[in-house]
């Protein structure tokens, strides 16, 4: 059955005891590209993925993945998807090659084709040298790469990546990002969950932000940033002793609160962008010239776009860090 949507979910509900992990979630993911499901810990990201990957039955609502219902046609869904869970789902006592062979044989490749495919993937993921070693000796980044390799032994039409870079060092992170981009270029739709907002910003064409099991915002990273309607002005001074004076001058000129940063020469202020941006940029220009007239030297100033952290704050009234500690306490 041809369908333009990789995922169509409506009014999904999943309850664990008294917790409504997924609470009336709607999702429409077009085929092609990388789609981000964003939210703090405990927002319902993993449960949503588990429902879509046929691992958990929803209590209510329905979901179609590539045209097939997840509850009535799980086998047809499984034949078209691949799942890379939050924790590397590898057999750690087996070698890298054996893990890929297992996957390939289960998916119906002949012995020979399985061996060729395993060797090809190990090479593509830079794991040839480690191919014969037990996975328990692999680093976190190597495990994650092998895990993704195992997910694409046969190309899935849709790949679920649940927090693919959680716990990885910056180098491994960028390697995983590169893999995700390549997969998307080669025609696989990728749905990835993340709590790193810069990750969604770098990889995803579209983002859905969820919290408490429901969708709270949707759009391109640019749309979401524009919806906040403000950016951040960063100012650095030459002398720390000027900071209090500079703060007073800028607050008068901009009409907003100016925050001192931990760095003793830095100040930041949230300023409007978008439709009201003209007025804001005039005010900023005015503030800058007043600073120099007062004899205060700036070393740098910059007007930044809002980060997705700020988007999250604007949407929920909480930062992602707060949301996280909240769930940890609960």
């Amino acid at each position, binding site marked *: 059955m041809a369908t333009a949507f990789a995922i169509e979910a409506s009014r999904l509900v999943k309850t664990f005891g008294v917790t409504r992990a997924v609470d009336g979630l709607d999702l429409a993911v077009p085929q092609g590209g990388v789609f981000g499901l964003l939210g703090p810990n405990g927002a319902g990201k993993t449960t949503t993925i588990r429902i879509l990957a046929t691992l958990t039955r929803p209590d209510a609502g329905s979901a179609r993945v590539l045209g097939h219902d997840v509850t009535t046609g799980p086998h047809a869904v499984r034949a078209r998807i691949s799942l890379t869970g939050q924790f590397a789902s590898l057999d750690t006592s087996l070698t890298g090659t054996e893990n890929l062979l297992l996957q390939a044989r289960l998916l119906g490749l002949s012995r020979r084709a399985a061996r060729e495919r395993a060797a090809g993937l190990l090479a593509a993921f830079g794991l040839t040298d480690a191919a014969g070693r037990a996975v328990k000796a692999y680093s976190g980044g190597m495990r994650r790469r092998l895990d993704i390799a195992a997910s694409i032994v046969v190309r*899935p039409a849709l790949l679920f990546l649940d927090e693919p870079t959680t716990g990885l060092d910056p180098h491994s992170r960028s390697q995983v990002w590169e893999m995700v981009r390549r997969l998307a270029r080669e025609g696989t739709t990728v749905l990835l969950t993340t709590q790193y907002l810069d990750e969604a910003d770098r990889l995803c064409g579209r983002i859905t932000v969820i919290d408490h099991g429901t969708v709270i915002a949707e759009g391109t990273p640019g749309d979401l940033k524009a919806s906040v309607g403000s950016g951040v002005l960063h100012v650095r001074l030459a002398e720390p002793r000027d900071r209090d004076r500079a703060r007073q001058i800028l607050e008068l000129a901009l009409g907003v609160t100016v925050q001192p940063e931990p760095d003793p020469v830095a100040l930041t202020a949230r300023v409007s962008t978008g439709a009201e941006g003209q007025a804001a940029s005039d005010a900023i220009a005015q503030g800058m010239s007043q600073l120099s007239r007062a004899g205060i030297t700036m070393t740098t100033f910059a007007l930044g776009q809002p980060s997705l952290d700020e988007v999250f704050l604007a949407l929920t009234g909480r930062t992602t860090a707060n949301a996280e500690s909240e769930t940890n306490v609960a």
Partner: protein
Amino acid sequence: MSATIAPETLTVPEHDPLPQPRVVRNSLTMGWRALLKTRHEPELMTDAIAIPVLFTLLFTYLFGGALSGSTHQYLGSLLPGTLVMSLLLITVSAGVSLNTDRTSGTLDRFRSLPIWQPAVIAGNLIGDMARYLLAAALVLGMGLLMGYRPAGGAGGVTLALALILVFGFSVSWIWTSLGLVLRSAQAVSVISFAVQVPLTFASNVFVNPATMPGWLHAFVDANPVSHLVTAERALMNGTAAASQVGWVLLASAGLIAVFGPLTMRLYRTRP
């Protein structure tokens, strides 16, 4: 399926629109995986081999004379018992491995594959059976070195091994159910050990129940391990065994009827 790729491509064409689950092939692949684990970590089988081998040696030479008049005579009744003991120790590994897969997330991957789903459990059971045959060969081999000559001959021994495998297969389902419920692989091992020790010792494996007090005698008579051991002795030593064999087969069928569906249900529904 054409799966030839240049290393620089990450993906290959998708599979056929709907690959069908293959019962035998998927199970054998999973069984291959279970045996690979044993090959990489043979030390995990130490208990299941060392305990029966040691017990056969120790009990025969320490107590054989006292219990049966001669070590040789005692060995003939002990060896079928230590084979059963070895079997019981091995049956738990399918449950342990299923639990490890569940807690590590490996089960999630298998459950999202277009395969015959029970193959995940069948593979572990195949692994158990293969490991058991290996352990049994070692225990039997040592028995032969110690002078054991089964009166039932090769045929009797083969039937005895077949019966013990049937029973082992059915007991494994208890531990696979537990493996899907308990929080850690250690918990599965500890609980199975706590169940197995009384069942093994309060049986007719080591000592003739006629010497025991009445209440213990009653327990030993009801203990399924005793029935299996009696059947094994009869088959290996070439005496009549029909009713004991029948009893063991019935017990096995009962265990599978309860714990088979339970395991499959837990497998489908436990997150």
